[in-house]
């Protein structure tokens, strides 16, 4: 019981995830700045931002539904933290692996997006509602290619469990090459999931002010910021576990490897953030459905065929 609580609250749960997400937020911001030839933030800036927000007054709009308005950010953060428990960090197995944990992690990762929609909806503000509707619209666009691209390697491995998948690719590393298109799609859709340029449509600052978060301030905004940061780490860790399953014997080395893998993915995400302009929502949807979805479908077909013919 006490151990479980330790797992959930301290390591690898809430506190550890919070700390590591601040580190990776710093890395992301610093890289973004350096790509733009700026100095960028100091190392403590993400922590300072969170502390500043935590001490600020929380303003809840009169029109808003108070209970839901305050509850939604907590649900979002809790879902992200829960998802992290099933992602492998220091070995090829996660903390509590079970048969179809990949599906569960994906479901947990969908909850924050739904929370963004609800947050926008309960704010009863025009900009927040437009942002919420956009978040939901965007969800339907990137979620399908993301799921298909993550499930394709699982189909090839013949299991829905993350540990099973890593174990399979550890034995047959050659099949990793087959999944490169799925990897690219995952990275692109992850950008949509994390609501970053070029898919930062739900909180496009110049169009709809803060989007979903327009009415949020103080502690509740800090929770949302932490959700977004930790979501980035969880998604990067999940992609790393499935597409780059490189593990060694030592737990410490594995942990360092984990950091390196997440760093590489964050680097790619930062580079994408710096090199594109924001899509318009119609362009984003047609891009996801006309380009990403067919490619991921083809990937699934290829994986099924390979599984059916070669691995029989």
């Amino acid at each position, binding site marked *: 019981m006490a151990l479980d609580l330790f797992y959930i609250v301290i390591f690898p749960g809430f506190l550890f995830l919070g700390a590591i997400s601040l580190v990776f937020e710093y890395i992301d911001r610093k890289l973004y700045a350096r*790509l*733009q*030839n*700026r100095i960028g933030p100091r190392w403590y800036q993400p922590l300072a931002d969170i502390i500043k927000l935590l*001490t600020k*007054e929380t303003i809840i709009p009169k029109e808003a539904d108070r209970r839901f308005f305050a509850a939604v950010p907590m649900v979002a953060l809790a879902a992200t933290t829960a998802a992290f428990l099933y992602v492998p960090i220091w070995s090829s197995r996660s903390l509590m692996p079970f048969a179809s944990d990949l599906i569960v992690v994906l479901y947990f990762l969908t909850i924050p997006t739904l929370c963004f929609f609800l947050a926008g909806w309960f704010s009863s503000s*025009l*900009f927040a509602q*437009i942002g919420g509707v956009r978040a939901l619209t965007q969800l339907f666009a990137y979620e399908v290619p993301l799921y298909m691209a993550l499930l394709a390697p699982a189909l090839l491995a013949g299991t829905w469990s993350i540990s099973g998948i890593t174990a399979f690719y550890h034995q047959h590393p050659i099949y990793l090459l087959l999944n490169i298109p799925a990897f690219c799609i995952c990275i692109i859709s992850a950008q949509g999931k994390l609501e970053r*340029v*070029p898919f*930062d*449509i739900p909180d*496009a*600052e*110049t*169009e*709809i*002010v803060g989007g979903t978060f327009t009415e949020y301030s103080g502690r509740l905004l800090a929770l949302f910021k932490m959700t977004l940061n930790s979501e980035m780490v969880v998604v990067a860790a999940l992609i790393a576990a499935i597409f780059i399953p490189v593990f060694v014997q030592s737990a410490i080395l594995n942990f360092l490897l984990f950091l390196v893998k997440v760093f590489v993915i964050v680097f790619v995400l930062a580079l994408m953030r*710096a*090199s*594109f*302009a*924001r*899509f*318009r*929502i*119609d*362009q984003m949807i047609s891009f996801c459905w006309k380009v990403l979805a067919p490619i991921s479908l083809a990937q699934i077909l290829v994986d099924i065929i390979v599984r059916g013919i070669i691995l029989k």
Partner: protein
Amino acid sequence: MSKIMVPLGPQHPALEEPESFNLLLEGERVAASQVCIGYNHRGMEKAAESRTYLQNVYLLERICGICSHSHSTCYVQTVEDLAGVEVPQRALYIRALIGELERIHSHMLWLGIAGHEIGFMTLFMYAWKDREIVMDILEMLTGNRINYGMNTLGGVRRDVTPEMADKIREAVGQLQERTEYYSRVILGEETVYLRLSGVGKLSKADALRFDTTGPVLRASGVGRDVRRDDPNGIYPNLDFQVITDDHEDVYGRTVVRVKELLESYKIIRQILDQLPDGPLTVKVPNRIPAGECISRYEAPRGEDIHYTRSNGTDKPDRVKVRAPTLANSAAIAHMLDGGYLADVPIVIAAIDPCFSCTDRMVRVTDANSGQAQSMDWESLRRYSAQWYRKQGMDFSRIPLR
């Protein structure tokens, strides 16, 4: 589908100045729009009537930070014409030089703003980084980055030394290289193209119908440029092209601005090569004979017009300013209708709006009287200290510096 009314402004992250657009949205599309401007009205035209001609140079220079030289040049042209003085050639060349440098800085600024509006922050950072080159040159020449204070009645205040001319040549070389890079890489980025092309359409007929000016008009295929059509100063001696483009959309306006940058570099090189020797100013009397004069100047945003009526005293009877943005404002609502909400910021930005210019004016009342209504610094600080104390924190003893 139900329609909702979204207010864009007076305060909004996409807008650099207070202005307001009421958008009637049908889903993501704009069904109708209304342009509300006038938030920057500062009473400058009235204030100009109670100041001397020389003081007005500085007053009108502060109509707008970006096109400050345009306004002061346009104004001193009217006064010099009324006084009947012949401005030395060297002064005219230096005026044109600052004017072209200002055009470069304004277009660079616009390119950055456009990047910001379409969520391409890298373009914003890069364009503004390169804008620093021209800002440094302007600071070296005039002393300030904006509000140069270069014009005075009858000439210019500061000279261009040969060493400065060399530095300008070097900077223009760098800028040219960067601008060519932008026209190659930024205009070749697919997401930028997707966001800019086909947005904010303004056909040639509409552009003429709404009396638009500047890059907006030229991007609709009408080659109208005061520098060529009704030249003032030394522009007849210079060889340059009037850039037009027939995209008729925001992409076209971007192309026009980038190409105009290249033309400006050409003009600056010619000015530096032709720069004659001679005095910088001639004496202009304090009292200007009665008369009226209208002058036009091609500001970075379009045609700037100043009308001055003198009555024989040392103060003008009427100064009228028509900034380019006012001419372009009438077309905004037309360009927004039927577009996406996401395109509204870039369409508004594409006319390079400057509502300080448009609305003008200075409140002539005492500077201290405004404090009664607003919270001053001390009481704001007291309020925040109280609020934090309630939360169990005491910041009031922390010194401000």
